[in-house]
Each structure stands twice: as C-alpha cells, then as structure tokens.
C-alpha cells in the first residue's frame, strides 16, 4: 500500500496495522526518513510534489519490489507540505518470511523512491531558503540495483 499525506505517521501503529490478523510474517523492516536541522542551518523544510504522478510512481515501485522479492506486505508513506527538524518525512515498511528479502526490498524502495518519485524539497534557514540539489550518490545507489538485476 502507498500513501501521500500531509499528516504525520506513527511507525508502531503502521506495523500493527500491517500485522493485524496474520501469523505468517517472520521479518519486518522499517525505514523512517526525518528532517535534519544540519547544525541550525535548517528551520523548515517544504515538500512539493506532483499530485497523481507521485502516487503512480510509488505504486509502480512497490509492485516492482514485490515482483523482485517474496514480500508478504509492504507500505510506503510519504509526507508533503511544511515540516520542521525532527519531523518524519518518509516511511517504508517491508515484511517477509525471512529477513533478507525485507532488508533488501526496503533499501531498494528507498533508493528508487529518491530518484523517481516526483517530490522536491525546499529548505529554509536563518539565511533564506533554497531548493535542495539532487545527490549524485542517489543515482549511483539506484544504478547499483540495476546492475544487480542484470547480474541475476
């Protein structure tokens, strides 16, 4: 399941919902991305997105992860709007029988999300605000999954 929302999320509640009524899950991995203040340089972060396409991309990525690993459940939640240091930004949860699939799929989802989900961060600090630049490392992280796939 995927969700794009302004509201915060509760990691424990999301895990509880995902596990509710099931006893077949053996491993649950969660990743939570949060806003860093970068030693006082950031006081606010605003996330803009492309409504419709964001949901579509996250759905596509989730389907890709499910096709690649034997997942029993998965969840991606991404927040938009104005956030403060310490606030949650993104949550990825993956569940599987054994840990490897859950760990790998969670990392894959984050690596792909960072380079394909149409969201943009704008940071505000004491000296004004600016759009965050994309990290070349994010592209390399994604490329490494494509190489693994090619090797499989």
């Amino acid at each position, binding site marked *: 399941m995927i969700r794009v929302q302004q509201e915060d999320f509760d990691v424990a509640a999301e895990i509880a919902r995902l596990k509710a009524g099931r006893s077949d899950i053996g491993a649950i991995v969660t990743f939570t991305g949060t806003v860093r203040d970068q030693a006082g340089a950031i006081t606010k972060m605003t996330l803009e997105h492309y409504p419709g396409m964001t949901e579509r991309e996250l759905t596509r990525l989730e389907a890709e992860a499910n096709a690649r690993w034997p997942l029993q459940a998965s969840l991606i939640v991404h927040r938009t709007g104005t956030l403060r240091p310490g606030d949650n*930004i993104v949550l990825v949860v993956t569940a599987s029988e054994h840990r490897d699939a859950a760990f790998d799929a969670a990392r894959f989802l984050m690596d792909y999300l*960072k380079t394909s989900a149409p969201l943009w961060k704008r940071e505000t600090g004491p000296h004004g605000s600016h*759009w965050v630049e994309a*990290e070349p490392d994010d592209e390399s992280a994604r490329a490494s999954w494509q190489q693994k796939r090619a090797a499989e």
Partner: protein
Amino acid sequence: MRLLYFAWVKEKTGIAAEDVELPPGVATVGEVIGWLKTRGPEFAHAFERAEVIRAAIDQNHVRHDARIGAAREIAFFPPVTGG
C-alpha cells in the same frame, strides 16, 4: 495540451500550469523545451540549462527525445529530491 511546472522550474516560469497549442513541427519533449525557451525571458531562464530539466508525459518519466504523440499532459521539473 496541458503543461505543468514544478519546484524551481515553476518559480522561474512564474506559473504552475497552462494550456497551450504547440506550434506545428514540435514533436518531441526536447522540441517543446526549445519552443518554450522562445516564449519570453522567464521561460528562457527556466529552461536555460535544458539538460538538467526532467520531463514526464501523462505522469510517466520520459527522456527529451520522447515523442509527444497524443499526450494530454507534459510536466517539467528539476531532478527529484524526495525521500
């Protein structure tokens, strides 16, 4: 055709969305960018470094050489920075 702009592309063009009639002969995303650049200083500025601009046709990522075909909506934006 509906054109959408996001993040700093939107800030530079000064608009979020518009409906346009593309001139004849504009067949690819790259050619749309080339045409947009001629539409005034704001657009010339926004699309100055055309190679860094990403595009989507009907909410699917595409390269600049993608053909527009029967697209309803084309979006232009900087490299994404979510997560």
